């Protein structure tokens, strides 16, 4: 039973973070944790494509997988720091990756941009196909496979709008899907279609797909996610070819990732309250507000870094980052004067990421 994709993704992430973060940060990335640290790390280490690609991953399954890779010598366990486990990527892993590169569809994934869009798109597609397949046979009472309000609303709208010429619509949908599927390797296309339900037919479960295609459940799930990402990318870049399918993604925004609480802080921040005042007003700890500000810094293109970090401090921090070759807060903190705070270091990491290609203005 092959588990190539899951292995490939974990090794790729491990390679990029090279011991700078604990094992659980890999888990947080895969499940798409809304934690700002996770999102920042995703950018800092260039692993944002894997953000949220395996949302249903259970912690126990992840731990088991890490252990398996360790036993295979692809990863080695490094020091533990107060119960946080660190791992390193081995030479063997490098060999493994280059060996399997050809067969790994890692280029499908665009987690940070598509993770949410893709799951909505996939749910819409499953429900749409099931619904059209049934109403075409005049069966209006079937048990829907999806119970999400977004997908229901979408399918209801499509139905109301296209009722009059539904046969044409269905034909078009079929042709566009065939077009997309034909670009995939045969196995992936089969797997994708086997999951679909319709009139008088219910699609295979993840476990059934795993057995049929001799893949691990992880790889079945990741294949479905990857294929969805790949589809959306094609649909969006060729709107005119994929007319019907484009309507399925057109209204889906790439989400702003500010958490609700950070958004409230942001509103006050825009009204010129200081962090201390915001903390007081919101009955929150000052550190929480700093967390929010670090989050805001990532998204607000006009974030005033200089209000929090002086030019000299910025230089000290940047120097320390280069010198220690590390993104670990603790390591950097030890390398700068003690009056520089963790918050300031975090801000500079964000700054460095945002303006990596130079050109950024320290304002």
């Amino acid at each position, binding site marked *: 039973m092959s588990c190539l994709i899951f292995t490939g993704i974990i090794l790729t992430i491990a390679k990029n973070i090279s011991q700078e973060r604990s094992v659980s940060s890999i888990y947080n990335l895969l499940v798409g944790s809304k934690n700002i640290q996770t999102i920042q790390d995703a950018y800092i280490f260039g692993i944002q494509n894997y953000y949220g690609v395996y949302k249903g991953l259970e912690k126990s399954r992840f731990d088991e997988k890490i252990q398996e890779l360790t036993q295979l010598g692809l990863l080695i366990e490094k020091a533990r720091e107060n119960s946080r486990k660190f791992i390193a990527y081995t030479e063997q892993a490098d060999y493994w990756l280059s060996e399997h590169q050809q067969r790994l569809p890692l280029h499908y994934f665009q987690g940070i941009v598509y993770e949410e869009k893709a799951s909505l798109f996939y749910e819409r597609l499953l429900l749409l*196909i099931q619904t059209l397949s049934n109403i*075409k*046979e005049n069966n209006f009472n079937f048990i829907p496979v999806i119970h999400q309000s977004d997908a229901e609303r979408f399918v*209801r709208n499509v139905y109301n709008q296209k009722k009059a010429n539904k046969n044409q619509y*269905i034909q078009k949908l079929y042709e566009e899907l065939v077009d997309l599927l034909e670009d995939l390797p045969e196995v992936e*296309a089969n797997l994708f279609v086997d999951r*679909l339900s319709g009139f008088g037919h219910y699609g295979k*479960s993840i476990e*059934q797909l795993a057995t049929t295609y001799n893949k691990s459940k992880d790889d079945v799930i990741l294949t479905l996610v990857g294929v969805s990402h790949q589809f959306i990318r094609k649909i969006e870049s060729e709107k005119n070819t994929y007319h019907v399918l484009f309507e399925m993604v057109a209204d889906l925004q790439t989400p702003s990732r500010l958490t609700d609480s950070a958004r409230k802080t942001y509103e006050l921040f825009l009204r010129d309250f200081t962090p201390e005042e915001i903390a007081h007003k919101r009955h929150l700890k000052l550190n929480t507000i700093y967390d929010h500000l670090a989050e805001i810094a990532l998204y607000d293109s006009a974030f005033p870094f200089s209000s929090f970090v002086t030019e000299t401090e910025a230089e000290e921090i940047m120097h320390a980052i280069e010198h220690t070759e590390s993104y670990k807060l603790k390591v950097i903190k030890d390398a700068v004067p003690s009056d520089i705070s963790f918050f300031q270091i975090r801000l500079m990491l964000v700054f460095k990421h945002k303006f990596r290609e130079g050109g950024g203005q320290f304002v």
Partner: protein
Amino acid sequence: MSKTMQLEQKLERYFQYDQFRKGQREIIEDVLQAKNVLGVLPTGSGKSICYQLPSLLMDGLTIVVSPLISLMIDQVKELRSKNFKRVVALNSLVGYEERQFIYQHLNQYKLLYISPELLQQEQFIKKLSSIKISLFVIDEAHCISQWGHDFRPDYLKLGAIIKQLESPPVLALSATAAPAVQEDIIENLHLKTITKHIYPMDRKNLTFIIEKVSTIHEKIELMTTYLGKHLGPALIYFSSRIQAENMVETLRRMMPSLKVAFYHGGIDPVDRIQIQQQFMNDQLDVICCTSAFGMGINKSNIRLIIHFHIPSQIEAYIQEVGRAGRDGKPSICLLLFGVGDIAIPKNIIENELPHEDEIRVVMQQLKQMGEEGLELPVRDLELYERFQISETKWRFLRFHFEKHGMIMAKNIVYDPIQWQRVFRQLNKWIQSRNSYKKQELEEMIDLVETTACLRETIYKKFQKGYSTPIFQCCSNCGIDLSKWAPSVKPARDEEIPWKDKLRKLLVGGI
């Protein structure tokens, strides 16, 4: 023309059945006289007609509280196919706009199916109390009872809702309700008078077999022997998810001609529906499942139910085997019992409800949240993950905290003396629940140990005597399996290339 004749004509006119089945007319006559009624009739006996027909004959709206969405969908589907159009189902699947539409047009319906969760909304209850309710039905009414297997706090609030609706006549229906459960149902619904219609629940087409084994290999051997004779729709019940999963692999290896899959509460929601419907659709032969599978499964030709582990109580056992032979044809119920098997259900019982220290931690954390002025999050998930307890445990605690006013809407109301008292009460109550469940388990173990007729032992708690079985009675009375020849053919799923499959789904015909 006599009254009963008239009713029979209505039955014929609306449902195209030429006569009532046992119990239906008696219950319907009482319902039409606006009496409160408790009806206990076996699964498949046609309880739904007992409110569907009255709903058409009475003035106003009949509300049916139903625990399962798939049950509602099935029923609405069946009614619509019989040209009963003024029926609607309200549950979490119905989108916001559609819900609003239904709220606005309530008086156009005769029959409303609703989940207990949706019936909790204050605004909706107000809406309902402004129209005439002809009848309030609780299907699967054992869910109300604290002794029922499916503990659902929302069911316990129905009594209060009935009162808010100005006490319309109530019809409570169940397939398995021993006397203690019946009393509990009546008490929880706050009904002063009620007319009971209790019918025997024995199923004369079921043959009960218990096999004691000393190793798991023996179990597997017996299981495959029976499956080999049968090769058609069958259910195998396990007490743990992981064992159900593992057995699928074993069975696929040992019996490649059967299509086998597993089902339990932990599988992905899409998969849950796909597996259940594949089975209904004859795309699957055998499902290895936990007790999470089966309620509302109306598949008529299941011929074999195997219990790989002992169920936790006779009621659960009766419900689970009741899924066999809905079409009335001979079917076999095989219970496999190994020496170490009692440990699992004992363990389950002990961990179903929260332990004393868990309650203490939850209460401390709630108190702290209250002191920090925090509101409870909208999603329960955040809470039970924070408290590190299971969802069921949290729902149980939340229900009791709300009942005692410790949680009001999103706020935590702290009162040290009262919280102490509730803490003690809860622990006492949980202890008594656990010992009750252990006693139920004992009854199940007695069944395995008895040398008396199994049929008699199974049903004795509910009724005296039973009808003569149409096939063979039970392993204690003696059975001859060579005579069992169910004629069913195994499921087939054609393997065709993806493009043809997709065309067949969407465009149709190939």
